[in-house]
């Protein structure tokens, strides 16, 4: 009997403590109500989710919307969160991350009157056509990765570059192939070492492994490492910082390239640039469209042309990139937009 009470107490406390905290229901004046469900990385990953969070927060300030957010602790709590928003008749429900695609597809079919938006996902109905109430926000990551690959190859002294991916999925392959093509356009002999943290969603949250992968790549000669690995990528930032700065030039010995958000300020001086994905703008725009009754379902593609993807240039990294490199990169950017340079889209294959 005693043992049963013990088990019961522990299980109950586990449930109490592990249930996620959600925003308090405040009686505010709202134009519209927006719910956002984050990916496993959580809204403060300084990267992908942080960009989406920034976008909806800006919408909250400018557009007087009421914003509710959920950070699911594991993949199984995504669907209940999404359904809870839908059952409360929210005006817009935003899902962040490719993993929510199949879930949102089910929920969006069940609630055809509610508008949905998914970042990095493509949602179609059973007939293969896009659902009218879902906006699929997709980015041409391979184009932005091409440009940072050019910068990396121009900066690299060894001709060896690194790529640390999070979960081994087609979306991340897009970053890897674009990066490699960009690097080879500058230096045809460039070697790109590619490693992935893992094959499950734990791969986004394993900075120790991320650092170990980066250290191994540095050991094999890499001096610029591009990460697309959520929180795990921060381990690569620690790895390059560990190699310090050259005392003569006061420039870092090894560099990292950030992803999704502008990560130049995470480790100032060690971040060559960031492949910025303007998830914030995309999310903000979709909120604005719902507010003004201009919402359109279907695919919304953000490439270099609309600055949906870009390389970041600010006071942190301006001294690190020579002007002639920037000129060259800008030139390639124009050519990609014009279709003169074709960057392989690994997901389209």
């Amino acid at each position, binding site marked *: 009997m005693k043992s049963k009470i013990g088990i019961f107490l522990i299980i109950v406390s586990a449930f109490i403590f592990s249930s*996620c905290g959600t925003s308090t229901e405040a009686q505010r004046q709202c134009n519209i109500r927006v719910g956002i469900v984050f990916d496993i990385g*959580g809204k403060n990953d300084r990267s992908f989710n942080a960009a989406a969070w920034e976008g909806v927060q800006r919408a909250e300030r400018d557009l007087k919307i009421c914003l509710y957010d959920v950070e699911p602790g594991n993949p199984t709590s995504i669907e209940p969160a999404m359904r809870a928003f839908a059952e409360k008749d929210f005006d817009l429900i935003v899902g962040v991350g490719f993993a929510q695609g199949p879930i949102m597809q089910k929920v969006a079919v069940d609630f055809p009157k509610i508008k949905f938006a998914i970042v990095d996902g493509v949602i179609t109905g059973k007939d293969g056509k896009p659902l009218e109430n879902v906006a699929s926000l997709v980015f041409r990551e391979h184009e932005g990765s091409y440009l940072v690959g050019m910068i990396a190859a121009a900066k690299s002294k060894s001709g060896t570059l690194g790529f640390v991916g999070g979960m081994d999925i087609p979306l991340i392959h897009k970053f890897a192939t674009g990066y490699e093509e960009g690097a080879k356009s500058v230096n045809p002999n460039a070697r790109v070492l*590619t490693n*992935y943290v893992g094959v499950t969603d734990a791969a986004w949250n*394993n*900075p120790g492994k991320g650092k170990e992968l980066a250290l191994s790549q540095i050991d094999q000669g890499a001096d610029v490492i591009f990460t697309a690995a959520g*929180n795990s990528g921060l381990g690569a930032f620690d790895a390059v910082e560990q190699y310090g700065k050259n005392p003569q030039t006061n420039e870092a010995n090894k560099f990292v390239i950030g992803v999704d958000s502008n990560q130049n300020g995470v480790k100032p001086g060690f971040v060559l640039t960031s492949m910025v994905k303007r998830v914030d703008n995309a999310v903000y725009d979709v909120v604005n469209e719902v507010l003004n009754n201009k919402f359109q379902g279907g695919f919304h593609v953000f490439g270099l042309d609309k600055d949906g993807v870009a390389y970041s240039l600010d006071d942190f990294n301006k001294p690190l990139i020579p002007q002639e490199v920037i000129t060259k990169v800008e030139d390639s950017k124009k050519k990609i937009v014009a279709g003169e340079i074709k960057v392989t889209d690994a997901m389209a294959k």
Partner: protein
Amino acid sequence: MSELLTLSLFFSAIRLATPLIFAALGGMFSERSGIINIALEGLMLAGAFTAAVATFELNNPYLGLLGGVVAGAFLAFIYAVAVIKFEANQVVAGTAINFLMLGLPQLISGAVYDSSGSTPQIAKEFLLPNYYNSVSLASIIAFALIPLCWYVMYKTPFGLRIRAVGENPAAADAAGINVIRLRYTGVILSGILAAAGGAYLSIGQSSLFTRGMTAGRGFIALAALILAKWKPVPVLFACLFFGFMEALTIPLGNIKLASGDPMPVQFIQIIPYVLTIIVLAGFIGLSRAPKALGIPYNKEK
């Protein structure tokens, strides 16, 4: 193959083995006293989270490590009360601790830092020191713990009693040993050591806590403990084996197959586990657990 076996691979293996050594040694004290400790993963997470928060707030990794260790000891004490005093099923209670630590750090970090995913990054100068860019202070401590634990386990009365309690608690009790108190000590020691291993992850190897950042290392440590037949020196080799295997998989990711494609990551990542099964099944012979492992002790029975 020869270019794979470099000195840096060796250091990488040591770094990857470090958290496993702490956790496996912790598990040894608990299991040798007769308490199954499947909660190593949760205890590591408690240590990792508390150490990250304490180091970030106090700007001192040693206080951070201390904080992590205290949190691990406290959580282990709760576990000990459940399984020793209330005689809860040890596997179930341990699993509950693991689940608890998947949620609790998020709840706290969500309340304190408005982010349930991760804690803020700690500046490099406030992390545990790292020598020659390769060996962390924590790795040195881990290696020093092996002979220390061996000495405690085999050369002190305390170690003898722990072992006696895990093999035959009734006989030990008859000989005047306080079984309950020894088991509490064993479990709390396991909390301290596992939490130190977790702290290494958040303030030694990387610079922040992210949810579930142990990524199964607690369970690997448990496997290492079984592989090592619950003995301290073999624990070192078992953990190094796992660390080495994981380190070896990193450069393998860049080897091109004859077809020109890279080796599939999925295949590379199963190698350590497949080898474990082979080693456990074929090479080490019978792995005999302490006889009273998992059986609650009750004087009246």
